[in-house]
């Protein structure tokens, strides 16, 4: 046997303890690209897609727990989508409808690409990643989970089982630039969250990890008049300065810095107008 299909979390954690070298997959949309392009030849796979616990969604007043195998399609609308609007917007930009039917937060977190569409939302909402092993579950703030491009703090014996996404009491939104009107990988993305009088901004595809714009957030926090004209422009500029983009085949660092400026400003204005 080389593909294991556990039906329960218990079974899965036992398997992973026994086979720490196995690949974990949920929807498979990331791993199979690597296999198809001859970049990876898995010898052992633990498929988590049929574990009931990983498909559960719990919507509470102040937070939502989303199982790691819940597909993006389910986050786009309905009660889940309405309770987490920025995540719904991000989920809608993931790949194609077919990818959104298979892909999940577990995959986005496991892969931890800076271009992962859901990750800026998990960052800006101060989400917690649930990591479960035979020894129990620990909760890791997203900011401590993603530690580099395609690197995270999951231990080999741990499974990403769920994400706790705190609900916020103000507006939240997400925007992503790509050079096509659908099914496009992110060139730059941003999530803006208002919570009480707090502003949070997280950026995707413009650094080695998702970037939380803490300087910008603190600057905003210190403002006496948060609604004065020019604030949105300043937020755009400051967020842009916090980005650390590079030139690659998808775009240029200059454009990405510029796009972040525009996105942060527009999202802030969108939030202020609601």
């Amino acid at each position, binding site marked *: 046997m080389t593909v294991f299909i556990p039906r329960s979390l218990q079974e899965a954690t036992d398997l992973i303890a026994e086979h720490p070298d196995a690949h974990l997959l949920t929807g498979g949309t990331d791993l199979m690209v690597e296999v198809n392009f001859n970049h990876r030849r898995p010898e052992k796979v633990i498929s988590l897609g049929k574990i009931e616990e990983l498909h559960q969604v719990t919507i509470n007043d102040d937070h939502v727990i989303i199982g790691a195998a819940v597909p993006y399609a389910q986050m786009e609308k309905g009660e889940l989508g309405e309770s987490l609007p920025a995540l719904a917007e991000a989920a809608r930009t993931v790949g194609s409808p077919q990818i959104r039917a298979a892909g999940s937060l577990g995959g986005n977190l496991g892969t931890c690409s800076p271009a992962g569409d859901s990750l800026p939302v998990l960052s800006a909402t101060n989400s917690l990643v649930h990591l479960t092993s035979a020894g129990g579950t620990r909760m890791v703030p997203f900011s401590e989970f993603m530690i580099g491009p395609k690197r995270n703090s999951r231990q080999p014996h741990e499974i990403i089982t769920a994400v706790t996404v705190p609900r916020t009491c103000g507006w939240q939104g*997400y925007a992503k*630039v790509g050079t096509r009107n659908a099914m496009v990988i992110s060139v730059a993305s941003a999530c803006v969250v208002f919570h009480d009088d707090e502003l949070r901004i997280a950026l995707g595809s413009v650094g080695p990890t998702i970037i939380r714009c803490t300087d910008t957030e603190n600057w905003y926090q210190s403002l006496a008049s948060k609604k004065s004209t020019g604030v949105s422009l300043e937020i755009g500029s400051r967020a842009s300065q916090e980005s650390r983009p590079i030139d690659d085949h998808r775009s240029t660092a200059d*454009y990405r810095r510029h796009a972040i400026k525009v996105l942060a400003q527009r999202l802030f204005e969108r939030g202020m107008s609601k």
Partner: protein
Amino acid sequence: MVLTKTRQRDVLGHSALRPDGTAKVKGDFAFSSDLWAENMLWGATLRSPHPHARIVSIDLSKAWKVTGVEAIITASDVPGQLTYGLISEDQPVFAFDVVRYMGEPIAAVAADHPETCRRALAAIEITYEILPPLTDPEMSIGEQHIPIHPDGNLIREQRIVRGDITATGPIVVEGTYIIGMQDQAFLGTESALATPDHDGGGVEVYVATQWLHEDRKQMAKCLNMPEEKVRLTLGGVGGAFGAREDISLQVHTSLLALRTGRPVKMQYGREESFFGHVHRHPAKVWMKHHATAEGEIVKIEARFLFDGGAYSSTSAAVLLNGITHTQGPYRCPNAIVEGFASRTNNPPCGAMRGFGVVQACFAHEGQMDKIAEAAGISPVAVRLLNAIRTGDTLITGQILESVAPVERCIRETDALPLPPPLPTDAHELLLPGGSGLTADRRHIVRGIGYGVSIKNIMYSEGFDDYSTARCILKDGVATIKFATSEVGQGFVTLAPQIARSVLGVDEVVTETIDTQIGSAGSTSASRQTWMSGGAMDGACRMVRERLFEHVAAIHKLDPLQLAIENTDVVDTRGHLRIPVSEASSGVRFEETFEYHHRPTEDLDENGQGNCHVAFAFVAHRAVVDVDPELGLVKVVQIATAQDVGRVLNPLSVLGQIEGGIAQGLGLAVMEEIIVQDGKVRNPSFTDYLLPTALDAPTVIASMIEEPDPQAPMGAKGVGEPPCISVTPAIVAAIRNAVGKSIDRCPVRPQDICL
């Protein structure tokens, strides 16, 4: 254009439906990649990771140890000619001393499973001496250039000099235009199944290609076999767009089959496909137009530089097409044009829909807008003022004999309704940026732009081009045969329509498309409706003559007074009326017809000569919504009026128009193969972006029917024109929206907003 939905007889002029439609919607249609044979092996190709390197050694020993490997071949296993090519045979079947582009084939393996092939390829050890890649086409032909190929770096140089080269006018506008490398990106990647003859003396190959006979000719030379020992059958083709004009895996697959004595199937993955076929030439085009104060063109100066990549493919012909279309569909009495196609260590470039004219058109249409601005007239007015007409002389000295309804194309395009303004509560997916939710309605501005083009159809420069078709009439059933590649364009729909119209039959059987009949030429250059249509029309007419002679003999009539009316043979001077089924009952008429177009000539050293057969014209108007701050674009609507000669199948023509527009849109705003230091950076559909359903504009099309007396059925080819002037029209619309000069395509966000 309202499509007729009445299904009377599927004769010419009606929207006959595809005969392969049912199989295609059921998933039953056999594409070349769907083929399978008993005892079949898989083939795979090892390609160079370097754009320029000397092969020091190749060690196959470890690869041979991979269980399941049946054959490994390299250049030393090629029994015949080591190189191939469409115009010049300069491209190695397998690289044998030097690799000249990233992705160049070096070896191939056959094994029991695709994964075994991949492991075997990974086990082949090659030692390279890496050489500096020559990637700048200007440097390639500069004085200091070092040749990267024994044939030298200049693939072709050609100039055109016409009229008074000192002429000028009060308006002088100039621009340098950059066109990016576009990929044909057919969905069905390269694939073939080769089966060796029992005696090893021949091979049968099912392959997706544009030109069976040319493939066979090139394959036979490399395989060192007589052509008749290489039998090709068209495997179902998943799109072509020029990328299947050159051979790719044909020789490799055949060699592996011959070596192993077993059927071998090869199929490229998407990444390999990006390396496995030629692309549209990236080009730099400089143009300087001199015009009167009113905006009438006095003279054009131009310089074209096409990057041919490592091997010549069709670069020489692409260059000719580019420079001979410098003037566009406009009168131009004086011109001095020089053009170069140069060799580099970039990916080889060759045929793609539009074939050199796309590059010329992008430049001349940019220029037309600059003249309009300088003359203070509208983009439409400047185009109408200069519109070429039948009988005008081109800058090559060739008289434009084709029907040339350029003025009508422009006027009818301009008369098509504009889309309503973007509503204040526009659906979020209608805004540039789409589901990325990057913009609100207030951020968006709209622009309008125009493009008009002229496109030669058929091959040029003295090529004796022909197509062959056979028709058999028996018992009221026509059986037709041709080697015309069906790549999706619809010749398999059209050919039976021709037979029905000419012969008055309803039932038409189309035989297998293979090399068991004479060549049909290539499915390219918008030529098959004219060429293979002409051949089929000719064969059917000859059969009809035989039928009339037969009927006339029985009824003691002059065959010349007989005609076909619907499904009957009728006496135009009497009362005789016999159904064709009855008239052909128990007899069999068979005729084969070879259609040749009129001869063309080479250009002389000043670029003068009747080098083209015929021309088609089209106009496009683009409406775009742009987010100027982010540089994102949504193409809202394309209006077009196209000179089609005569509409033989409205639904098919509309399909060509809409499909061509989508490809031109791709080149305008998203499609580009990114090459850095000779390395392709985006060989995948994640990073080479094609238009999706949410990128497709509304298309409103008008088909201009002025039958061309030179064309066999009055009909011009319709495949290429739709994708040519739509690109400059969209870019003009973006310029119009944001008020910024943009002289490259595709337009990248940073070209708009930074």
